[in-house]
């Protein structure tokens, strides 16, 4: 579904990704794990076009993403839930969801998608007229995921969904991730919370200083001694 080959990217003089190759098949849940500053968020930003790649190839179901303008990448079926959620704080929950359905095909099915997202997350329906910025962190994460689902995506990119949330809420957020998996979405998730994320995905890539260090089935990485030592403090 999503395929990256030899992707380089960076900010000005600073190169953050070096020849990253990876693929995500339809129906999979894949995690990208690694230390703070390893380039995980940069990778998602490159996929959704917020940051241009400087070399390499990148495609979504055959569409060349490097030749697609950033605001049209959502039309290939990619929805990105950005780091620290980035809701529109002074728009209501429902207006945030409306922004998620901005693209033409999604606009036509807005009422239907809204019912679907409210059905999936009834809490959002209760809060539909509340300003998004006044909700708790967990509710905001729910709203951010709901906003991404409004476009009817095939692949959902999740950037650090557990960041900045209390431990009990983190557990709820990983439950949300399991639920969108079971709804049939393909998921690519970036997380520092390695122990928890490896329990909800099929495969994972470990990124270190901008390079894919290793990859494999989640269970295998979870059992690996050096990963347990380096990222889970065990």
């Amino acid at each position: 579904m999503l395929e990256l080959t030899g992707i380089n990217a960076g900010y000005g003089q600073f190169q953050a990704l070096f020849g990253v190759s990876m693929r995500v098949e339809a129906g999979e849940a894949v995690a990208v794990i690694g230390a703070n500053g390893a380039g995980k968020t940069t990778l998602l930003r490159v996929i959704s076009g917020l940051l241009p790649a400087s070399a390499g190839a990148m495609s979504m179901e055959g569409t060349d993403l490097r030749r697609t303008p950033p605001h049209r990448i959502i039309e290939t079926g990619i929805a990105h839930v950005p780091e620290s959620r980035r809701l529109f704080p002074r728009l209501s929950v429902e207006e945030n969801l409306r922004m998620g359905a901005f693209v033409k095909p999604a606009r036509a099915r807005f009422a239907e998608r809204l019912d679907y997202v409210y059905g999936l997350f009834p809490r959002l329906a209760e809060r539909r007229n509340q300003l998004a910025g006044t909700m708790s962190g967990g509710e905001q994460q729910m709203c951010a995921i709901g906003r991404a689902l409004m476009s009817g995506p095939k692949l959902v990119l999740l950037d650090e969904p557990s960041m900045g949330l209390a431990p009990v809420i983190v557990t709820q957020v990983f439950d949300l991730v399991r639920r969108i998996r079971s709804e049939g979405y393909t998921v690519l998730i970036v997380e520092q919370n390695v122990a928890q994320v490896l329990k909800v995905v099929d495969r994972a890539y470990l990124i270190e200083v901008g390079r894919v260090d290793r990859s494999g089935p989640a269970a295998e990485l979870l059992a690996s001694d050096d990963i347990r030592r380096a990222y889970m403090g065990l």
Partner: protein
Amino acid sequence: MDCALDIFFLEAVLNGLLLAGLLALLALGLNLVFGVIDVVWICYAELVMVGMYAIFHFHKVVGLPLPVAMALGILVVAVAGVILHAVVIRPVLDTPPINQLLVTGGVLFFLQAAATMAFGVEFKNIGVQLGSVSFADMYFSWNRILTFVVALAIVLVLWQFLRRTFVGTAIRAVSQDRQIMPLMGVDTRQIYLITSAIGGGLAGLAATLMVLQFDIYPQIGLQFGPLVFMICVLGGLGSMVGGFVAAFIIAQFITIGGSCFATEWGYAVAFLFFMVIIFIRPQGLFGGKV
């Protein structure tokens, strides 16, 4: 000096209310553009002037019926707003605010000079008199009443547009987080152009109302431009609600001050009030954005 709470005072209050409608409309376009694009159109009042001349030209020179001339006038200023953004603002969008002030300030003088070259310095008038209405010994001109009603109607229409439509919601969203707009499938450049067209269109609408009340000359923008900026800053630059409220406050200062002392004193008192408020609340009454 006569400032008793009599019928003249009431007349001044009501005239202030009517004046506030026009000021609120003028503040609306400037606030919309600033709130969304983060650039102050210093030449906003000159766009209104362009609209007034366009209406004058289409009506008096070309000979089109006034409503058609007004519709064309709105269109001209809306297009002028788009051109202003695409040609002047876009290249300096990511530069320090002082550059943006200087280029739009340059446009102000350019438009004044261009209007002088095209139409001369003498006062023009479209020659429409709507008369006035008297009510319980008070007189109100139909121009002002019409202006008030239309201005309020436009504020309501714009508000509904911003609240209920996809594009309107996107315009408000851009003002809150422009970096992530591509993730929503929104082309920020396009939203800026639409916003500039609406900002220009609002200046054009103000022009249709102002040609009914005022003579047209190249420097007319200087007569009300500073006042509109003061209203926007008082309300909190970028806050449409703030601009609306501030328009009503300032209009009362002007008309009541004018009725009690003299018109010039009305403006002086209004600016004094403005300075005091800005000392107390530098971010304006409704600081923050829509």
